[in-house]
């Protein structure tokens, strides 16, 4: 049976900032959801869902981070679909978006609200 669970978003401490390589991502499980957290600059993080809607696999945290113009993006490692890290928009068709989450760093710890 398919079961639908809805959970209210909460702030959760996930890892140390230095657990995430600069210019790379990690996956975390937060409140039952798979979240991809990306360290795009020394102290700038973004968080999106880890789920690639095109290939239906939890792989986005393993994508390569880059820029398109001024936009920070991640390219899915499977078929290279690129998503805007800030808004979750799929760059070739803005009608498709992936969920994004709030993320912050406090005393070297990474917190995500999901």
């Amino acid at each position, binding site marked *: *049976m*398919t*079961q*639908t*669970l*809805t*959970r*209210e*978003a909460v702030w959760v401490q*996930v*890892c140390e900032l230095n*657990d*995430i*390589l*600069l*210019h*790379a991502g*990690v*996956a*975390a*499980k*937060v409140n*039952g*959801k*798979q979240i991809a*957290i990306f360290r*795009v600059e020394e102290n700038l993080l973004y968080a999106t*869902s880890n*789920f690639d809607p095109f*290939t*239906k*696999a*939890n*792989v986005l945290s*393993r*994508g*390569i*981070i*880059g*820029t*398109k*113009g001024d936009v*920070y*993006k991640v*390219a899915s*490692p*499977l078929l*290279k679909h*690129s998503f805007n890290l800030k808004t979750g928009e799929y760059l*070739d068709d803005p*009608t498709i978006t992936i*969920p994004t989450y709030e993320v912050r760093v406090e005393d070297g710890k990474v917190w995500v609200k999901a």
Partner: protein
Amino acid sequence: MSTQNTHRLLVIGNGMVGHKFLESLQNKTHNMEVTVLCEEPRLAYDRVHLTSYFDQPKPDLAMGRIEDYQAWGIRVVMEKATHIDREQKTVHTSTRALKYDTLVLATGSYPFVPPIQGKDAEGCFVYRTIEDMDAIYAYAQSSKEGVVIGGGLLGLEAAGALKALGIKTHVVEFAPRLMPVQVDEQGGKLLKKKIENMGITVHTSTATQSIDLENGKVKGLTFSDGKSIEAQMVIFSAGIRPRDELARASGLEVGERGGITINEACQTSDPSIYAIGECALYKGRIYGLVAPGYTMARVVADQLTGGKSEFTGADMSTKLKLLGVDVGSFGDAFAQTPGSEEMFFTDPLKGTYKKLVLSADGKKVLGGVLVGDCSDYSNLHSLFSNAMDIPGGPEHLLVPAPAGGGTQVKATLPMTATVCSCENVSKGSICEAVMGGAQDIPSIKKCTKAGTGCGGCVPMVTDILKEQLLLMGQEVSNSICEHFDYSRQELFDLIRIKEYRTFGEVLENHGHGLGCEVCKPAVASILASLYNEYILKQEHAPLQDTNDRFLANMQKDGTYSVVPRVAGGEITPEKLIVLGEVAKKYNLYCKITGGQRIDLFGARQEELPLIWADLIAAGFESGHAYGKSLRTVKTCVGETWCRYGVQDSTTLGIKLEERYKGLRSPHKLKGGVSGCTRECAEAQGKDFGIIATEKGWNLYVAGNGGMKPKHAQLLAADLDEETLVRYLDRFLMYYIRTADRLQRTSVWLEKLEGGMDYLRKVIVEDSLGIGAELEAAMVKHVGTYHCEWKETLANPEKMKHFRHFINTDEGDDNVVMVEERGQIRPAFDFEKADLLPMISGD
């Protein structure tokens, strides 16, 4: 909300054409209330590719998505229309009545089943819907032989599908040849031969008398000449008939042999009712292809939103791959134009047939038939569709240009030429888009929709893009991406000469932005080719594509496959047992690869270090199957065991694989060594291939299998082993330094000015004087080889990155395996749906 002023648009039918109509209307329906009636239990799907429904994994053929329809403000009623009341402007279903101001009939067609005795028995099918496919699939499980009645396009598709389901297959065609509508007698003969070679029995000029039954089920066919065959299932594919019954009952004008009569605006005899697609009859003709239906859909969408487009007939040209055979037909394929001339070219060895129909003066192409090779189709079709004068002489169109040069006739298209016939995009619109700033293929696709249908025009769109950029005085950019204004070769030289060691340095001095998934792995690969450092060093790790990042090959569900090196394909029984034990321990799927190795699939990211710890303990090392690097050197058993072998191919293959292992290159590399000219290692299909002769080794280079197979070419003959290795070192390093990103050796050689002769001068005669440098670079590589997995396991810091989640030891709960043929495979979505809880709340 309906108000007095909203216009009620009702569409009956949600096939491909009905869907295209709604899609063409999107964003223009603000003052309309749009409803579509859909009789099948699902929204529109891609019927043209229905046969692929039997593929594994099952493709998603859906075209109409309920979310899209909701976003477009379209109401979907999943019911069958039963009656049209034109007086009241109402369409009835069994449960409701729907009012309309405008009605569009997109009711399509149904398969014609000839009135043969026994046609309704159990085991008889038609080939039209997903339900038909399911029924055929299920019945095929208990059948041995099957017959397809009808040897047209769809019939051959159906035959291919039956064959693929493991059934002995017959095709019965009433006409004297297959595909009688598209192909002429000669072409039909060749097609028949090709299809028979695949093990399908073809009966032409044959009429079916009756279907023989046993207990109400099909057991065979009897032909009108008295002969009979056995079969447990029959698929009818004898053409289509328009579904005009609703129109007919409501008193709309229909053709003598069916079809709803329409005018240029696609209006029926009632001006508030339109008909599009296979149910519509224009000037006495039903168009049984999807492209003309799409044109009608666009015409009506345009009419309803104030435009004035017209439908004035359509090109019935077709190009397709049937059971792997290219078949193309266009224009006046049967030379019915008065005074026209025919020209033929047959190559019985290659199994190709080409016919051109020329105007009386021989200056224009009026039509043609191609069987076995359709590579010239788009060139010929555009000469025809644009009525252009043939450049050169018509004979050049038929006879292939001699290899390595010669004149390839490529006409410059006029601006009005249709380039993409699926979406009806002209060359002019593409050029405009390019001038408007769409200067790569994705932007052109987005802006013009060209290339988004069947995709067959993409090569031509690429040519037009380049041509237009040159015209605009722009250099055709060869920079690898927006972050660097350099080609890979230029980057390679920059990095080598300035001795940069990290991506950061290269970006800072020569790039902009942060980089991307194109330039990062490219620079990572160049750095690895030059310095061969550990690729997961902190500064290199974020540059790697996922395969290199996790030192394994990512598969569709996010799990990985593991391939240890089995040099030359030689493996001891002990090691073979270890592979089996490891696979069993971690429940991995096992497959022997094309390169003589054993691939273990289904490893979760967090299991990779555990698996490799076991493999390394047993003496294995990384096979680099994940890298753009040397994969394998395939060998035969050579003189050691084979009664024909003249040299020891296995030993040489192992030596070469050991020498070049870990060598990172623009594209993956493969090699092969055969012990005699029988070529059991298929060495000529590899980037480098070596074939033993009585006198030494013959070295072939720049071949490949894959999407565009190429035979390797002879670089030098009768070499001793030392010279062979020297030439190979030079060849590989020269390629690595000068090729584009992801460019195979074969393509690199094609683009190399001077071709093979030039390459031979560089490698064999050392005409550039760089031989020693290239050899030294290879020696350096060999000296710095290290097993990346061994290094990774020795570094506890790196192991953390293999966990799926940074904050828990859990694995990915979306990875679900099911069992097939005694091993695991990833579950398909529909299998997962019942197994996984869904989390929402976003």
